[in-house]
């Protein structure tokens, strides 16, 4: 039984982290993020960057799908918009990096509002299918609008520079990506402490009575689309600086499925869910690679089966979590937490 949660003031009760263990764990996490590039080699720093980019995109999708109840299978297309915007600005205009990222996010948000418009008429599965359709149409634009997008060959970028530092190696990129990721996840968490986030949840749970409470449903649905797309756009922009080439095939339908899978596996409708879902889904393929390398001496052609094994495990994780653990990894974390209750602060 937790007893120590009675608060002196409402301010303390409304804080983001209300219990002592939460605060300590968060401090540990932030410290870990700060020392990560000093303790790990370039490969792990590379992976950490990839995880953080996916965390941003998945958190955005979680706001849309997990909290507002609008399923999107076109999220990768908004990453693509952010990536192309950044690449185009770098190549043709030469604006500063942070401004490019912001522009990528905002343009994605604008297109997100347009893609969200069918949510006026359709919901559920139909909306998900509409977002698939929208992402195919955007793909067509990326291939055909050669003057801006470079067609099938795409756009290659020079290393970005921020405050006079060229971002060449993974550690430098990490110091760009990590703070942005922390900021954006904190922003998403904040949202659910005030009227905006509450309205999203209200629309998800029961949209008719949300209307009686004075929540304009369409406006909030579009706001959720815009916000989710903004997150995807920024993630895509970072992706462009990270891989330094953007092509129409950089963000396939599979990436959209990947992001939705991350939210499902992590746990829909909790900020933590989007974060650990993206972490888990990004790292599993790497773990499989280690597994297959270990099996190398035993199985001939072990290298050849890696890709199919990843595809199978990816699908099996989606199916397995939906059938057996629909609340996702967050629920498993909660169970562990209940088990250790207040550890190591038990007195």
């Amino acid at each position: 039984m937790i007893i120590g949660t009675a608060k002196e003031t409402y301010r303390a009760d409304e804080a983001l982290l209300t219990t002592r263990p939460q605060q300590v764990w968060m401090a540990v996490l932030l410290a870990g993020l700060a020392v990560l590039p000093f303790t790990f080699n370039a490969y792990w720093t590379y992976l950490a960057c990839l995880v953080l980019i996916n965390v941003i995109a998945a958190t955005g999708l979680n706001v849309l799908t997990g909290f507002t109840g609008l399923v999107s299978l076109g999220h990768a297309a908004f990453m693509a918009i952010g990536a192309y915007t950044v690449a185009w600005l770098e190549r043709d205009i030469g604006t500063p990096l942070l401004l490019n990222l912001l522009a990528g996010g905002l343009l994605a948000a604008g297109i997100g509002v347009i893609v969200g418009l069918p949510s006026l008429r359709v919901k559920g599965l139909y909306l998900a299918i509409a977002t698939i359709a929208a992402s195919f149409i955007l793909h067509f634009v990326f291939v055909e609008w050669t003057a801006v997008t470079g067609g099938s060959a795409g756009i290659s970028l020079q290393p970005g520079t921020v405050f006079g530092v060229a971002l060449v190696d993974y550690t430098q990129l990490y110091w760009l990506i990590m703070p942005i990721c922390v900021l954006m996840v904190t922003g998403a968490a904040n949202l659910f402490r005030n009227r905006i986030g509450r309205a999203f949840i209200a629309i998800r749970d029961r949209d008719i009575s949300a209307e009686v409470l004075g929540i304009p449903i369409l406006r909030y649905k579009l706001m959720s689309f815009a916000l989710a797309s903004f997150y995807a756009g920024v993630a895509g922009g970072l992706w462009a600086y990270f891989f330094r080439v953007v092509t129409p095939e950089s963000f396939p339908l599979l990436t959209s499925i990947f992001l939705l899978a991350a939210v499902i596996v992590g746990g829909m409708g909790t900020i933590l869910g989007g974060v650990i879902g993206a972490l888990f889904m990004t790292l599993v393929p790497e773990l499989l690679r280690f597994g297959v390398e270990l099996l190398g001496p035993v199985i001939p052609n072990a290298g050849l089966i890696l890709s199919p094994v990843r595809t199978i495990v990816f699908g099996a994780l989606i199916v397995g979590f939906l059938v057996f653990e629909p609340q996702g990894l967050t629920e498993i974390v909660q169970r562990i937490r209940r088990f250790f209750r207040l550890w190591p602060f038990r007195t």
Partner: protein
Amino acid sequence: MPEARGATLEVDNVTLAFGGLKVLRGVSFAAQAGSVTALIGPNGAGKTSMFNCISGFYRPSAGTVRLDGQDISRVKASSRAALGMARSFQNIALFRGMTVLDNIKLGRHAHLRTNLLQGLLHLGPAAREEEALRAEIERKIIDFLEIDHIRNKPVAMLSYGLQKRVELARALAMQPRILLLDEPVAGMNREETEDMARFILDVKDEWGVTILMVEHDMGLVMDISDHVAVLNFGAKIAEGRPEEVQNDPHVAEAYLGSGDPAALMRRLHAEESAA
């Protein structure tokens, strides 16, 4: 405590048709500021359709709904909260996964100003607004409705009667000038019904809010209403003070198919003692 005075609601000659089916035919009545008005009638009389017209889910085919003299017939449902209109639903429409506190906070949505950007930062104005909201809800609503012991519980875990009370709390958080209650005591036991009656009267007296309710429990209607309007087959058949309506032969006929007021009285008493 009350900042806002109750509003007067006038329903003028409202007709509602779905295709050829006329659900409401030229209904007029008024709920005076700061009073309790009950809308009664047999099942299928059009009471809930009337409520849906007033709260903006249905647009009347003809006639007007006026709030303090202003025609609101064309105002969107979601914009009526800001005008001071709150309603509860016949089948409780709370957000079951959220806590009681979050449900109540949602009621204030239309009156809060935090925008998306401020919401993401949750600094300064947004944080202050939330804190002020929390303090006010605690002081005015949670204490008033005696629900402080459940404030952090998910709504789904609560008993039916408590859920109805939370729904009232959420409606009060909307700072209403008029409160529409759709069967506030349906399915409640006697004790819960008496609690709810007390709360409704307190809301009227202490907050000055106008109350319009649809209710089948005739005991409650006769006890707390100042004014009663009776619908049958989509038309208003009687209106007046409770005791006037009680003795109206048309009303008895609507309920029992005979014009005998005494029969209605017998039935009402039977219902009351059964409850």
